[in-house]
């Protein structure tokens, strides 16, 4: 059964090729069937493999399917091979599962778009690239998926290419992620030079033997890989591209910029966790990056007026939590939060998509208002998603995953109080801005008229995701609520090495409960604050906004804390300026200057040829004089 593994990525690829070459001929329904169908079947196979994994796990809890040798240069022999273990299985499940739902949703959402087949072709290509990334046996193949995903996000962000702003956003996304990829590539070169292979398992085992903990090489590699992860997952300092990426259609934002691609960085660090355990400084760096990003993104989300940008910043913030978890060594907690986040964030995006679809592409929450009554289903599913994001205790999956992270941040060996504090503050901000969005968008009097209500094809995915984002949390309960740690046990084999170090230091249930209570209080407090400020007494905000200082602060937050302006002044403008100034290529001017000198000398010499006989005779006489003097006197 397991050797059906290669079908999972092959199907979306086949879908892409069919749509690319025969897209127009298939007609809308044909395209929908091929597009959504291929991902659906992959999801089924993934489910089957999950079932076989649970019932009769292969020995050593991993299964490698080698297809062919890719390169053979000296000692370096990477193969095109797919590697399945709990970590990659979870990722595959999420990618194909959520992916299928989003494909289904976009059948309805994109129905009246003329480039229908191109959309599904790119979406299928994206799923293929993401699966390759997740199932890659060695980092070189992972890099293929990594760049493929980057390309697809470029294609899909710039899907409506007629609007120059979209093209700019797509270009920005690709270039910023490419900066991160270059750092990662450097990490690969270091690995190939030092350890001679990029095959993940050999890599980790050789690293463990050759490098003692805290060695410079481990630190350098870890930081370089972190560079790549930061680029792709939109963390500090390379997070500026994610908010602009909302220029793409909403299903794209849901699939790529919420559920799957942006978590590729988390997967990379999780996959190469041994290197990070060997370099504690690097883990600390990961944690700090996570903490800072979640705070910055949280602040920025407050000032956004576009519903999708609020969700984008919240995505950055939630991935910040995952980085925080990875930083403190809570590998399975990070992956657990990844899974739950994929569910509720996809749900939020799709629901927002329905709202936008209904209000004829109106994305500004201040122009929405009062959708509660007009779109009851969308409102309810949006509310479930929002509560899961805000981590409403006990009933939402978000609560369990975020709580696990906060607990680990506090108690684990690499954890630190400040990290926990940042996480807690983040929780407060998250619930506040989430419910700000809910109150402004769904409550109050309706401003724009609802055109046409989304069909069942768009509602079913919303329901499915709503179910998942509530039930999803129950498979991993905190210790004191019974020992249901299915997820952690399932993930254990992937992090075999780490199991030895992070022994579960039981600080007793008391501490755990205490921390949970604090987290709950912050969450609910956030919701209350949002209620007061944005629904009950909105005039407080108007009054505050009068003062110049606040308005400037609001603009600063709106621009994502000024990172865009910073990078423009530091990198983009100088680069463009040099390009504009040097269009004529200085070196070329140098050569033309030489030619000009030649022409000048030609002109000067020309003057000596006057055409008069006596002048020529004078020339001979002068020549004779010089010759005589040289010959006689030397």
């Amino acid at each position, binding site marked *: 059964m397991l050797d059906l593994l290669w079908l999972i990525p092959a199907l979306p690829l086949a879908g892409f090729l069919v749509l*690319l070459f025969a897209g127009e001929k298939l007609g809308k329904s044909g395209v929908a069937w091929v597009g959504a169908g291929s991902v659906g079947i992959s999801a089924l196979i993934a489910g089957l493999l999950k079932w076989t994994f649970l019932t009769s796990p292969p020995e050593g809890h991993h299964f490698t399917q080698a297809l*062919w*040798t*890719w*390169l*053979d*240069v*000296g*000692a*370096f022999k990477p193969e*095109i091979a797919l590697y399945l273990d709990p970590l990659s299985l979870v990722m595959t499940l999420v990618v194909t599962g959520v992916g299928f739902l989003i494909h289904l949703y976009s059948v309805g959402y994109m129905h009246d778009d003329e480039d229908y087949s*191109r959309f599904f072709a790119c979406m299928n290509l994206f799923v293929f690239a993401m699966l390759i990334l997740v199932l890659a046996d060695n980092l*070189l193949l992972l*890099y*293929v998926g*990594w*760049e*493929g995903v980057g*390309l697809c996000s*470029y*294609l899909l962000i*710039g899907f409506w*290419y*007629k*609007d*120059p702003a979209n*093209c700019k956003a797509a*270009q920005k996304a*690709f*270039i910023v992620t*490419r*900066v991160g*990829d*270059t750092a990662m*590539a*450097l990490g*690969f*070169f*270091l690995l*190939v*030079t*030092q350890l*001679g292979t990029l095959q993940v398992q050999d890599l980790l085992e050789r690293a463990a033997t050759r490098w003692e903990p805290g060695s410079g090489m481990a630190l350098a590699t870890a930081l370089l890989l972190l560079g790549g992860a930061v680029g792709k997952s939109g963390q500090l300092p390379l997070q500026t591209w994610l908010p602009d990426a909302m220029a793409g259609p909403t299903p794209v934002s849901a699939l790529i910029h919420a559920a799957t691609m942006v978590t590729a960085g988390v997967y990379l660090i999780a996959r190469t966790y041994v290197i990070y355990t060997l370099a504690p400084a690097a883990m600390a760096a990961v944690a700090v990056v996570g903490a800072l990003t979640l705070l910055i993104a949280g602040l920025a989300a407050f000032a956004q007026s576009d519903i999708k940008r609020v969700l984008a910043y919240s995505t950055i913030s939630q991935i910040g939590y995952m980085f925080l978890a990875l930083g403190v060594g809570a590998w399975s907690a990070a992956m657990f939060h990844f899974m739950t986040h994929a569910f509720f964030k996809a749900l939020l995006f799709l629901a927002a998509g329905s709202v936008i679809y209904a209000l004829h592409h109106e994305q500004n929450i201040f122009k929405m208002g009062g959708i509660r009554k007009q779109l009851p289903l969308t409102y309810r599913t949006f509310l479930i998603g929002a509560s899961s994001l805000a981590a409403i205790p006990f009933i939402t999956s978000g609560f369990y995953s975020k709580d696990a992270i906060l607990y680990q941040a506090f108690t684990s060996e690499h954890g630190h109080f400040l990290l926990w504090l940042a996480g807690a503050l983040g929780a407060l901000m998250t619930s506040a801005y989430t419910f700000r969005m809910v109150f402004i968008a769904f409550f109050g009097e309706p401003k724009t008229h609802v055109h046409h209500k989304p069909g069942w094809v768009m509602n079913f995915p919303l329901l499915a995701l709503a179910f998942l984002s509530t039930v999803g949390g129950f498979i991993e309960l905190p210790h004191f609520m019974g020992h249901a740690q299915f997820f952690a046990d399932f993930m254990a084999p992937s992090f075999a090495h780490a199991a030895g170090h992070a022994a579960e230091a039981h600080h007793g249930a008391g501490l755990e409960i205490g921390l949970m209570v604090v987290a709950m209080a912050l969450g609910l407090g956030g919701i209350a604050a949002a209620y007061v400020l944005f629904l009950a007494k909105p005039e407080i905000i108007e009054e505050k906004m009068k003062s110049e200082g606040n308005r400037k602060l609001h603009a600063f937050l709106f621009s994502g804390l000024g990172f865009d302006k910073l990078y423009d002044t530091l990198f983009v403008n100088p*680069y463009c300026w*040099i*390009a*504009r100034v*040097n*269009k004529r*290529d200085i*070196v*070329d001017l140098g*050569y033309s200057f030489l030619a000009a000198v030649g022409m000048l000398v030609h002109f000067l010499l020309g003057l000596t040829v006057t055409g008069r006989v006596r002048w020529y005779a004078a020339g001979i006489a002068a020549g004779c004089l010089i010759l005589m003097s040289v010959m006689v006197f030397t």
Partner: protein
Amino acid sequence: MILVWLILIPLVGGVVAGFVGSRNVSACRWISLVALALDAALAIGMISQHLGGFQYESSKVWFEEFRASWIPVLGISVHLGLDGLSSLMVLLTLFLGIIGVGASWSEIQERAGFFHFNFLWIIAGVLGVFLALDLFLFFFFWEIMLVPMYFLIGIWGHENRQYAAVKFFIFTQASGLLMLLSILALVFVHRAGTGTLTFDYSELLGTQMLPAVATWIMLGFFIAFTVKLPAFPFHPWLPDAHTEAPTAGSIVLAGILLKTGAYGLLRFTVPLFPEAARSFAPVAMTLGVIGIIYAALMAFSQSDLKRLVAYTSVSHMGFVLLGIYSFNEFALQGVVMQMICHGLSAGAQFMLVGALYERIHTRDMGKMGGLWTTAPAFGVAGMFFAMASLGLPGLGNFIAEFLILVGSFQASVPATTIAALGLVGATVYSLWFMRGAFFGPNERGWTIVDLNARELVLIAAFVIGLVWLGVYPQPVLNAVAPVVQSLEKMTQPVTAALLRS
């Protein structure tokens, strides 16, 4: 004897096409196509004999050899030889030759006979360069391929073709003469050492000479090949030559003529002067890195499509220079891959831009924009080759650049990091290429005919080539392995093989 036929067929084909062309235009196209196809068949037949099944008997250094005396008085002989590296180059040359003829099917109408005469003589000259094993013969072919290229650019080029053609000719010719001086110096040093006057490559290989002398002689070779490569300070001729050349000219110029520079470095500069090359490595690598970054910046600043693609070639060739002077197996394998993949991707991009020029009669990106709407097939092809040129994994260029950077990482880490920035630069100019031509609103309301069958076949050939090299490059790596290993052994001390520690 096959090697001589390999060069003779295009020569004769050219002459025949030239005569027939004046009377019947379409006939001469078919003649040149047939000539090249015949040549390609011959080459493939011969090479597959030796490289069949992708194993190679590494017993003989040269698969095929031909020797005849030419000027015995001066020790000059017609000595042709074929090994792994040159067989790949021969195949690339013939492949791009056929594509070139295909691409110029509708573009060249007036004086087609003379066009195909020149075109086939360029191919013959380049084949001669790749096969020559006698330094005089190498220089002979090195200069021969210039004259028809000059006529190609000068007669069928675009607006200021005279300037570009003369500039191309003088740059290459002057540096060629420097190389002639180095060849003569090498020959006379060899004669002083061993008393025999000969220009034969294998005999000149082991000449002993003082390091200072070796450096000066090596410099002559280096300058000639880096002008042709083109590397940083000597590159200004390329953008002009490319912008003004007709499509077939650009394809051949980018696809093969640039590779003669890299081939020269691999075949002559490094093996003939290993120590001098080793001591010169830092300078060469710096030039390579500057070339990558500077050309990427310049590519981004261009508004003329062809100049943009020309500068991208300079940037890619910067990688080649960096790879050659890292002297380890990774980098050298990467260099050979880059030579082939860049030949394909740059050739394809030039063909596309040529086809575009045929339709909208401008290369200025300012006047384009939004072509995807009227010509989606064009857009997809443009996107594919833009991705190839920025080194998207899964295509040949990525394998090449990855191997080069891994190799150069072992030689010098700072150079590699800066070169890696070149990858970001590559992304910037590739996306600029796409946004300039295909994306954005269609302000000028272009309605152009999409790619026709002939062009699609050519593009398919390129796509298959690049994907095959990206997914299964092993045959190429096996073919070149003996040459690369011998090169690495020659310059052994440099690598200090961190890998093996």
